[in-house]
């Protein structure tokens, strides 16, 4: 399954993959969330047209699909950066200075929470708890977890991601 949103895949391939996805879940009970998840993997976010097609294919009102997509924090209705930084805001991270780490990265990249840098290189997000509390403060960049961060080391780490 292709899961990249780096632009290497052309639009035709994406549309074909999306078509296969719709076919795979046609008539499957309660499949809206997995379909949205997998569609987001293909396109990197959920364009309006995509959600409309999903609604039609699943026989679900478009308003409901939109309601579901905006309920869960994992779904994104706007394009995002190539690298997703998710800073942990869990209890352990909080008491070990996560706020300062967040501020340092945010200042360095020039974006606030849930914003994407102009060059689409980074999207900065927060996450409630990554469950890696022993390593607090923690962040995830894409699927890599980085722990025992300081404001400086976090900024340096982020720069490793093109």
């Amino acid at each position, binding site marked *: 399954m292709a899961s990249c949103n780096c632009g290497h895949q052309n639009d035709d391939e994406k549309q074909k993959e999306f078509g296969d996805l719709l076919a795979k879940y046609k008539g499957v009970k309660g499949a809206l969330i997995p379909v949205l998840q997998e569609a987001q993997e293909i396109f990197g976010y959920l364009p309006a047209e995509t*959600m409309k097609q999903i609604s039609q294919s699943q026989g679900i009102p478009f308003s*409901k699909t*939109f309601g579901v997509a*905006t309920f869960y*924090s994992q779904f994104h209705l706007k394009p995002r950066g190539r690298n997703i930084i998710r800073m942990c805001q869990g209890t352990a991270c909080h008491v070990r200075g996560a706020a300062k780490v967040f501020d340092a990265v945010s200042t360095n990249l020039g974006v606030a929470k849930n914003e994407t840098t102009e060059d689409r290189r980074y999207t900065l997000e927060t996450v409630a708890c990554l469950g890696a509390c022993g390593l607090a403060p923690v962040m995830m960049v894409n699927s890599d977890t980085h722990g025992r961060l300081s404001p400086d080391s976090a900024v340096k780490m982020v720069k490793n991601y093109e």
Partner: protein
Amino acid sequence: MSYVSLTINGIKITVPKGTTVLDAAGQAGVFIPTFCHDPEIARFGACRMCVVEIPGMRNLPASCVTDATEGMEVNTESPAVVEARKTILELILANHPQDCLTCEKNGDCRLQDYAFRYGVKESGFTGERKEYPLDDSNPYIIRDANKCILCGRCVRTCNAIPERSVIDFGYRGFNTKIVTAMDTPLGESECVYCGRCVTVCPVGALTWKPLAGKGRVWEIDRQEVTCTFCDSGCTFEVLSKNGTNIGVIPKAPGHGRPLCLKGRLGLELKFLDHPPDPQLKKDGAFVGVSWGEALGLEDILSKLDKDK
């Protein structure tokens, strides 16, 4: 059928098993305030206005979703209940415009009624309020999301017709909002303006655009009429002020059928001395159309014209 006996505020009452505490109270003549409850649509239990105190039960259960059981003792106005209702009203008011003087719903608003009942003059809470633009993107319904208390009655009544379902809950938590697909104004949605949602809205979030500024609730007389444009038998109300009919609004759908715009427009033509020009959406914008087109009678009318 089996029955259960319970006491509500000391009043003994026997009701069929499966009756909710709210309905049992109604039968005992005890009033319990509600926002989200609607006997016609699926239970929801969200506004928490109807909470009551029942010894032996954890917390204060919502009476609209609690079944009456044998020997139950219900107190609908205990100090804890009153404190909870007052606080909930304050919480709603903290996030609701206080422009009752000019609100179309003034005098026909549950929030007003309950604030009066519990003596809630103002909210003690200050802080962030929602600030959404007014949606008057169509000729029929005005949506003011700032006045919405998220009881969900409009959503549930709209979703009762699967092929309509043009609105739903969107976003989450404090940002929850009733939305169309992609959160567009109603005028850009697939809405057919049957108006069921306006009829069930307990506050001023959904109002009739053709009636805006035409009169106060207490000045208006209502007459129930049954639509005869098809055989479903939906009911409407003809509103009149000082003996002049000023508007027609839907009351209840006929059995198994939705209300429709065509029926309501037809009744406007029938009952109003000066019915507003009908408008239909064409290529994404509302345009004025002839009555013949609005009511789908063009063929017949053209034949009648020929006969002349």
